[in-house]
Structures are given as structure tokens and as C-alpha cells.
């Protein structure tokens, strides 16, 4: 891509800043967290949820040019010797702005950058982090290698120029389950799956905080493009046994008790039973899409949209079973 000469560029920026100043000021006064799409500013403000534990909560929305793809939760844990980053957001800009946000809180270096799974809202900010800190479960690495390019292309289509210069960076450090000191912090990794082939859960034992990745949604309908529902429900059952003091879901608000786990499991259970019943009663896929969402889930953000997507993901298997076709 051609770049402007530095003089021309800086003049343009001065001019731009001059023109945008009143707007920025108005927005800043209006909302502390304003995402300013003109300046491609996600307005990231880390919220401390425990000693040394921070969350950047995404919106309970689908990808759009208005939100720039800031739809998932990311977070970081500040240890004595460095920072552990959990997911990098949906774009290069997000990753860069996340690093700036971290630097405002601690001068310590990022020593470990985790991608919890291979969905684009969780790893496309990787470019902003030191390459040798990028780490994930082996199946997540394989997923990013196989599908990262297509995800990236699709996000340019969905959120537009927020994605500028975003490229896929595949993490090279292969993580395994286990408990160890990371940056002086007592961290345990759980290698689970079900939302995707590999979903990594990060436990900070000192604070009792569980970063549950997209195995847990809170107030937002779960997404299923790579889901294995029985495995996912097993993973949630395993999480429920943890002595956690607070839960950071992949999407939706941080919660002190296991209500988001119950909610996610109840929705997945309803979803799979609904689609099996639809296939078993001879409905066509287009008809299955028009079935109503059960009343108790109608308050979940995006539930109508996610239900219809899930029909496409999950109905074919239910249908093959009903038709006795392998």
C-alpha cells in the first residue's frame, strides 16, 4: 500500500485533528466509553475485577461497522514479572489499542498472549503483541492456520476499515493443560472443547477468577459454527465444579456465581433438543428456522439471529439421523 510522505501525512493529521476536535470533545463528554468510529477508537477501558485482573468487555452485538468487531471480552492479568493477555480482539487496531490500555496500567512487559480459541473476535489483534508470546492449544493453532485467512476476509466485509492492515498471525507456542507460575502468578490452564475443537480456560487461583472463553456466554446467545454440543455441555459441567469466585464469559458481563454457566447449558440443551425434534418430525431446514425461541431465552441478545445460524450448523446432523443417512 502506498503511503503519503511524512510531511503531507502529518499536515493531514493536524487538519483532521482540527476538524474532528469538536466532535471528539462532544463524544468524550457524552460517554466515557464512546467508540468513535471516525477515529477508529474502540474506547477500550480495562475494568479491574480483582487484584491485578482486568477485563475489557465487548458489546453484546454482532460484528458491525459501528462496533468495529468489539463484541468479545478480552482481559489481562498483571503478575509480578509481567502481563498475561487473554485474547487479542478482532483487529490489528483492537490489539494496538489494547496494548496502550495495558500500558496505562502497568509498565511490565507482556510475557504470555493467549488465544482461547480460533474464532476471529479472539485472535485477530495478535499483530500488536510480541510474536514469541503468542500461544494457544494445538487444535486452536491448527484452526487459525486453516480458517484464519477466511475469517479475516470476512471481517473486512463485516466491519470495514476498522480492519485496516489486519493480518493473521498464527501463535507458535503450543499450550497444554496444567498449573504453573506465569509472571509470578499462580495460573492454571484447562484444555476443554465443544464451542470449538479446542477451548482454553484460564484460572487465576489467587483471585479465584475463571476466564471461561466462549464456553460461557452471559445474556447473549451462544454461537455454534464449530460446536460439538454434548462436548460443550460436558465442559460446562466440569467448570461448574470449580471453586470460582467470579466468571469472565467470552461474551457478556462478568458474573460472581454460576448463573451464566447454567444459562449457557440450558440454551444449548434447548437448541439441540429443538433441532432433533424438528428433524424427527419431518420439518424442512427452512421450516426449522422459523420455529420460535423458547420464552426463557428471548431476553438473550441476538437470540433470533443466532438460532437461525445454529439451524444451519446443527440441523444437518439431526436430519441425517432422522433420515437414517450416514
Amino acid at each position, binding site marked *: 500500500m502506498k503511503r503519503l510522505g511524512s510531511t503531507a501525512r502529518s499536515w493531514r493529521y493536524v487538519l483532521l485533528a482540527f476538524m474532528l476536535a469538536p466532535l471528539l470533545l462532544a463524544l468524550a463528554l457524552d460517554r466515557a466509553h464512546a467508540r468513535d468510529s471516525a477515529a477508529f477508537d474502540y474506547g477500550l477501558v480495562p475494568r479491574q475485577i480483582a487484584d491485578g485482573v482486568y477485563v475489557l468487555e465487548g458489546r453484546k452485538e454482532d460484528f458491525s461497522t459501528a462496533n468495529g468487531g468489539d463484541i468479545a471480552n478480552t482481559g489481562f492479568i498483571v503478575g509480578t514479572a509481567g502481563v498475561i493477555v487473554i485474547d487479542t480482539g478482532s483487529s490489528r487496531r483492537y490489539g494496538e489499542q489494547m496494548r496502550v490500555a495495558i500500558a496505562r496500567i502497568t509498565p511490565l512487559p507482556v510475557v504470555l498472549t493467549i488465544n482461547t480459541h480460533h474464532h476471529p473476535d479472539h485472535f485477530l489483534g495478535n499483530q500488536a503483541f510480541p510474536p514469541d508470546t503468542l500461544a494457544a492449544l494445538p487444535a486452536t493453532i491448527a484452526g487459525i492456520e486453516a480458517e484464519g485467512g477466511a475469517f479475516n476476509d470476512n471481517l473486512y466485509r463485516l466491519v470495514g476499515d476498522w480492519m485496516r492492515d489486519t493480518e493473521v498471525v498464527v501463535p507458535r507456542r503450543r499450550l497444554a493443560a496444567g498449573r504453573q507460575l506465569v509472571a509470578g502468578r499462580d495460573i492454571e490452564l484447562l484444555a476443554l472443547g465443544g464451542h470449538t475443537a479446542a477451548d482454553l480456560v484460564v484460572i487465576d487461583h489467587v483471585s479465584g477468577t475463571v476466564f471461561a472463553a466462549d464456553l460461557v456466554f452471559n445474556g447473549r446467545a451462544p454461537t455454534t459454527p464449530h460446536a460439538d454440543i454434548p462436548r460443550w455441555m460436558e465442559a460446562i459441567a466440569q467448570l461448574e465444579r470449580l471453586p470460582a469466585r467470579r466468571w469472565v464469559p467470552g461474551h457478556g458481563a462478568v458474573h460472581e456465581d454460576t448463573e451464566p454457566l447454567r444459562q449457557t447449558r440450558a440454551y444449548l440443551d434447548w437448541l439441540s433438543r*429443538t433441532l432433533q425434534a424438528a428433524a424427527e418430525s419431518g420439518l424442512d431446514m427452512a421450516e426449522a428456522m422459523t420455529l420460535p425461541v423458547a420464552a426463557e431465552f428471548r431476553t438473550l441478545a441476538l437470540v433470533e439471529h443466532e438460532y437461525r445460524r445454529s439451524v444451519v450448523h446443527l440441523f444437518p446432523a439431526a436430519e441425517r439421523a432422522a433420515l437414517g443417512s450416514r
Partner: protein
Amino acid sequence: MKPAHPARRTVCAALGLACAAALPFVAAGRVLAAAPALQPGADPLDSSRWDDMRRAFFADAPVVFDDRIAVTAPFSAEDPLNVPVAIDATALGAVREVLVFADFNPIVKALRVEPLAAPAAFGLRLKLQQSSPVRAAARTADGTWHLGGAWVRTSGGGCTLPSLGSGSAEWQQRLNEVGARLWPGVGHGDRLRLRIVHPMDTGLAPGIPAFHIETLEIADGAGRVLVRAEAFEPVSENPVFSFDLPAGIGAAGPLRIRGRDNNGNLIDAEVRP
């Protein structure tokens, strides 16, 4: 294709839902902006391809946009290789044939169905190369074509990708294998659903020639042909079809599904009620 109330009751009972709540949903899921009945003029889907479509398929025959032909399709295609479409033209009375096509697909025509002795209601999945109107045109006995349709948005690429089957040897052992089942009392009578193992290659992926099912026939136990269908490249890989058949159709013995692909491979299966 509206499931009759017994089908809904089955589903609803299984889900523990009140049937009353379920009833409006097929109508609500019809995503097209409903055109007023028998509107002769402008395309309600406002497609720049409409004049071409009209010339290609209908020539000088009378054409009306008619909300008595319902096309149920998602507003947005989650998977451009598998866009589910259900068509119900039974409100038109006797229908001679129904044509399903997508204006902006590189191969426009997807399926042609003659409901010889069956209600004009069926479902399929198709591949979309880009966002497009998906339309169904039903020809009634007087020669008039009645059109329904819906826009489907998609990220696209559905027609120029190789089939998944072309990358594995499995389909060679299972080509034209049929999984099928008849559901009494579903849809406008009894519903037949079937899945056929076939790569359905469009010929638009480099180095992979067109290879697709061309004809399908469904006959009752007495050998009477109920539905005849002609399939084209945009029908999805390992196609799944729904066909509504007259109530009690299984009484005369097993249904017979016969057909062939463009390489002459035969499809032949029986469905016991």
C-alpha cells in the same frame, strides 16, 4: 411448504410449547416483503436482473407477482453452500410446474418440479455465489406464471468452490445412496424427505467438471409418478429434498425414488412407510 397442524403439534409437544405460539411462525419466517396479490408490473424484489430472467424463462407468457406462492428462505445465508429454501404454491390450486432460480447465480436455474399428482410444496438447499433474489415461479393450467421470492444476502462463493466430496474418495463408494423417510400427516398430506449422496459439482471450480443429479421421480406403490424433478448445478452437495405428497400415499406399498445424474449413474431406492 407449511407443515399441517399435526406436525406442529408433534414438535410443540416435544418442546413443551403452546401450539398457539407456534402457529404464526411460518408466515413470519417468510422473509420477502409480501407483494400484493396479482401485481402485474414491477419486480417487488427490485432486481436489476429481472428483465433478463423474464426473457429467459417466460418469454411472452403472462407473469404475475403473487403472494400465494410462498418462498421461505433466510434473510442472510450462514452457509452459502447450503441455503435452505421452502416453497409452497398450494394456494394457487393446480400447478403444472414450479421453477426455482436465483437471479445472480452464475448458473441461474436450480430446480424444476412437476407436481404431477402431489401438492405443489417442496424444499431444497442451494448454493449461492453472491447475494441474490431466490425465486419460485409456478405455472398454472392457464399458462400464467406466478412468482414469489426473497432476497438472500450472502458472503458468497458457493458455486465456484469444489465440493467437499471431490476431496475425498468416500462419495465414490456411496454415490447416489439414498436416505429417505415418509412422515404421514406432515405438510399438505404426507411428507417425503430424502438425502442423496452426490458431490453436485457445478463445473465452475477449476479442473472439476460439472457432475450433478439431473432427474428425480417419485412414484407410489402402484407405479404412478407423483412428482418429477429436474435438478441443476446450484443444488447443494449431498442434496436434501422435502416433497409433500398426497395423504395416505404409503397405503399402496413402498414409494419408489428413481433418477440419474449427468454421467448416467442411476438413483433407485424404495421408501417403506
